[in-house]
């Protein structure tokens, strides 16, 4: 082998070593860059997971993401409400906004706002016992009267209350009222729309919807709301539910609940006292 050939061979070997070193360095840098990127992605992935969990927790804590709109007529939800309301009110006479026999010796006036959640507690908690024990037996009649408290917009309050009173012109106001409370939405969410009202009316058994729609334009029903408000004001009522009770046709006295709106004891005791008087 010639000396020139040996030099060329050494040079090539040196170049190869440098090339290999450069390649190795490039690979190491690429590997480091890839590892860094993977680390960053992992960190962001963990943050995303924490954020998703937090959002789900907030959703559940603030109402589970449900949007309370009336169940579609014929759906299991609507059928369930209709069954409950029918079982509660079936066979009890109604007249206008009054539930119970016209000759019942005691009258209870219930001032409520259909969007009021405390009224819902009373209606779903205490009222079934009261209806079963006193109304169904002909000893008590209940007049539903309106007082705007929870409903934010007066127009909405009028819309829903006139709709209830319009059902009363077919002696089905209590079906409307009970159905509304059973399917009441979350307060202040603006859930009461024309569609919602129509959905409630559709669940009232035997309600002639065409007649009901026409009756909603009756000015007397709107006037009834004003009369209710004046009566509430005269008695110093500012919240709902509020109650007046007395012998039918006689003087009425204020009645207040003591153990919470779900407990019917306060009504039971007042009725018993009036029946003995």
């Amino acid at each position, binding site marked *: 082998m010639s000396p020139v050939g040996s030099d060329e061979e050494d040079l090539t070997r040196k170049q190869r070593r440098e090339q290999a070193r450069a390649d190795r360095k490039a690979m190491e840098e690429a590997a480091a860059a890839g590892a860094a990127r993977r680390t960053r992605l992992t*960190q962001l992935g963990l943050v995303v997971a924490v954020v998703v969990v937090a959002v789900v927790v907030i959703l559940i804590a603030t109402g589970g993401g449900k949007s309370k709109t009336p169940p579609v007529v014929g759906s299991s939800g609507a059928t369930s409400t209709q069954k409950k309301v029918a079982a509660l009110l079936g066979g009890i006479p109604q007249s206008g906004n009054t539930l119970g026999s016209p000759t019942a010796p005691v009258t209870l006036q219930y001032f409520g706002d259909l969007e009021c959640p405390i009224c819902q507690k009373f209606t779903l908690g205490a009222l079934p016992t009261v209806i079963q024990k006193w109304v169904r037996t002909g000893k008590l009649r209940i007049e539903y009267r309106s007082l705007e408290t929870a409903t934010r917009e007066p127009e909405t309050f009028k819309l829903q209350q006139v709709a209830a009173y319009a059902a009363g012109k077919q002696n089905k106001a209590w079906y409307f009222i009970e159905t509304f409370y059973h399917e009441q939405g979350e307060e202040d969410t603006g859930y009461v729309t024309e569609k919602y009202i129509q959905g409630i009316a559709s669940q009232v058994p035997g309600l002639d919807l065409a007649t009901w729609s026409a009756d909603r334009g009756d000015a007397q029903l709107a006037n009834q709301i004003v009369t209710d408000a004046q009566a509430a004001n005269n008695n110093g009522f500012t919240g709902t539910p509020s109650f007046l009770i007395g012998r039918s046709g006689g003087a009425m006295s204020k009645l207040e609940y003591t153990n919470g709106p779900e407990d019917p004891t306060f009504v039971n005791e007042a009725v018993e006292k009036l029946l003995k008087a």
Partner: protein
Amino acid sequence: MSARTLRITLIVLAVIGTGLASYLTYIHYAGIEPLCSIKGNPCSQVQKSVYSELAGVPVALIGLIGYVVILGSLLTPEEERLRFVTAALTLGGFGFSAYLTYRELFTLHKICEWCVSSAVIMTIMMCLSIWRYLRGGAPSALGAGGAVAGGQSAGAESPAPLGSAS
């Protein structure tokens, strides 16, 4: 986009977001109607809904605090760890905005243009801050005579990312 431009863009967005959240917080505590171009003022209905507060704290105030903290993380001299903090904060802000937008669309059925504006700003900030964190690079300085010049090429990696095991 250079690192400096990216950072300045994020700061501008955070300032706008802070302004929006400040206005909504003021509206909430002053009890006045928000300006709204949509008929029927759905902004007011959204602002007065039960979802305008979370555990008794106005969501506008939560948003304001969020924007201020994000702004603070952007104005602090830049480093790898702070880029991660900014990205994490904007991810949290995006999640919260998504929750509020969900409530507007599917619970309240009302849209507040102030809230939507804030949600859009937060979404852009999240995208930019994640991009900024993932691409790495040397820190940028805000001042013209900053110690470290911006303009690192995209894809350049910093030698030691936060929590790197390498």
